């Protein structure tokens, strides 16, 4: 029986039980984020549903009106479970969106550097090297300290810190591809340079890029949470997980742990499930490790 490439890929991926657990968790997280409005017991943005008297209830505690909140409530009487569902939506959305933008920019510059070489290559890679010599969090902090907070600014900051990783990965992959015969053949056929680069070389450069992108989504989510925790990221109107954690920090000292703890747990599950999937993807897609 002949196996399709997709099936072979899946079988190799499924060899690691840990990766399957990660994938399962990741699918669950994505589902919850997408279906947040239908899954949440309460709309955390609808102020008419909130009752200040329900504030800071412990998980499972009954409110005056006889409602129970599975994961407790925050200082404004907001159901933590609903807050986490919506927070997950914001965090994942920002992470994925910034990764897509950064990937596109990095892809174009990496391809240009590899295909044209010479001073184009030197210029682009020098910028990449210099940028990567500074930690991502520092660059993001500088940008947000200068521009101020907001969803668009967070995304700009995340894209700025991430594009260099993709540019470097794409360039390395494209340099290998450029030496191959099919590119030579395409050149002999007098295809346009744009066509050779984007139609022929690009698809072959994708595997390492997918691995980097998976890892980077986790980084982006984590970085956004950190920035929001510091009060420099998302505005109060778009509470991401980081902002929820930051909000609960004030109450941590008085033993009201759940306002910070559960959003943190959601963040941890998200980041870890992505990392587990990325680890296995790297092993499956890296031909050097093939037996």
């Amino acid at each position, binding site marked *: 029986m002949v196996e399709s490439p997709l099936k072979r890929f899946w079988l190799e991926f499924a060899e690691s039980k840990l990766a399957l657990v990660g994938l399962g968790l990741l699918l669950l997280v994505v589902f919850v984020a997408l279906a947040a409005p239908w899954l949440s017991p309460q709309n955390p943005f609808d102020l008419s549903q909130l009752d200040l008297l329900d504030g800071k209830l412990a998980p499972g505690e009954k409110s005056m009106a006889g409602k129970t909140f599975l994961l407790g409530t925050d200082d404004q009487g907001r159901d933590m479970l609903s807050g986490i569902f919506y927070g997950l939506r914001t965090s994942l959305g920002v992470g994925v969106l910034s990764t897509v933008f950064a990937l596109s920019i990095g892809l174009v510059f990496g391809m240009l550097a590899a295909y044209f070489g010479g001073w184009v290559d030197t210029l682009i890679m020098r910028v990449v090297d210099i940028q990567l010599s500074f930690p991502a*969090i*520092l660059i993001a*902090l*500088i940008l947000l300290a*200068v521009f101020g907070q907001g969803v668009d600014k967070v995304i700009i900051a995340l894209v700025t810190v991430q594009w260099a990783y993709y540019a470097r990965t794409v360039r390395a992959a494209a340099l290998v591809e450029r030496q191959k015969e099919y590119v030579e053949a395409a050149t002999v056929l007098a295809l346009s340079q744009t066509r050779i680069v984007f139609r022929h070389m690009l698809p072959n450069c994708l595997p390492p890029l997918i691995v980097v992108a998976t890892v980077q989504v986790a980084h982006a989510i984590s970085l956004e949470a950190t920035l929001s925790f510091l009060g420099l990221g998302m505005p109060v109107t778009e509470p991401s997980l980081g902002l929820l954690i930051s909000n609960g920090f004030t109450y941590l*000292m008085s033993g009201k742990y759940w306002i910070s*703890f559960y959003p943190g747990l959601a*963040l*941890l599950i998200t*980041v870890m499930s992505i990392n587990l999937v990325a680890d296995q993807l790297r092993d499956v897609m890296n031909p050097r490790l093939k037996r």
Partner: protein
Amino acid sequence: MFTYFIHRLTQSGVVLLVMSLIVFLGVFAIGNPVEMLINPQADEVERARATIALGLDKPIIEQYWIFLKGAVTGDLGKSFVYGTSALDLIMSKMPATLELAFSAMVIAVLFGIPLGMIAGLKPDSLIGRSIMAISIIGFSLPTFWVGLILIMFFAVQLGWLPSNGRGETTLLFGIPVSFLSADGLSHLMMPALNLALFKLSLLIRLTRAQVRETILQDYIKFARAKGLSNTRVIGVHMLKNIMIPIVTVIGLEFGSVIAFAIVTESIFAWPGTGKLLIDSINQLDRPVIVAYLMVIVTLFVFINFAVDIIYSWLDPRVRLGTTAGGGH
């Protein structure tokens, strides 16, 4: 060697210049510089006077020149909140940050290298696997959340360790440090551990990879064939060779520890430069923000420069690399 030195020095200078331009354009050109640099509580007359005093009516290139001249002589403006020189303010907080960063690095090295070696020598044993599992978790956990969990557990639940401040400081060579008194040490413990965790995981992974690679080398096999004791083979022959890349990474990571200290300092209210930065951003104390960015960028450029020079001294291929690479 000398050519390489000059080449790298010029490059560092260019990076510094570009960074100063970005910070300058960011703070001075985007938005209204008058609003950014003059105390928001000032009235109209005061504003007009300050605009002229700060030279904000001059063309932008001249303003950048003035900013550069000030930066070179260590004049980066005065803090709105404290009324003192922004640079002095940052330098007064620097010992606290450096102490925290050093302590974190010491913890990461003291635990990371031995654990990584165990994981590398016994990769399939239960202990080797457990160490790797811990390092994966350490990689995935966001630093700030670990900080919260530490506070929740050790400060709130158990009440063993204080959760904020530096505690009692003692003077060492005229610099206030925490680690010499019991009270200061108890304050230092949690933030240092928090900051160390990520680097600890990194060092475990790096050391493990190095050990796994070195163990296959001929000189290790030869040393064993000579009948040397296991301790000697691992402790002398192997350790010496795995140290070069590890030392490089430690040097490079030190800068990133200082950057990550911003997060840890905010959580544990550690009175260092990172907390000062976040406070200044919240209080719109812009001269301090600019000064902090310039100081940290300079520090980074310096660390990168130093690591490159040391590395090229340890490994001549680096400085000759471009010419010996094979005729490109």
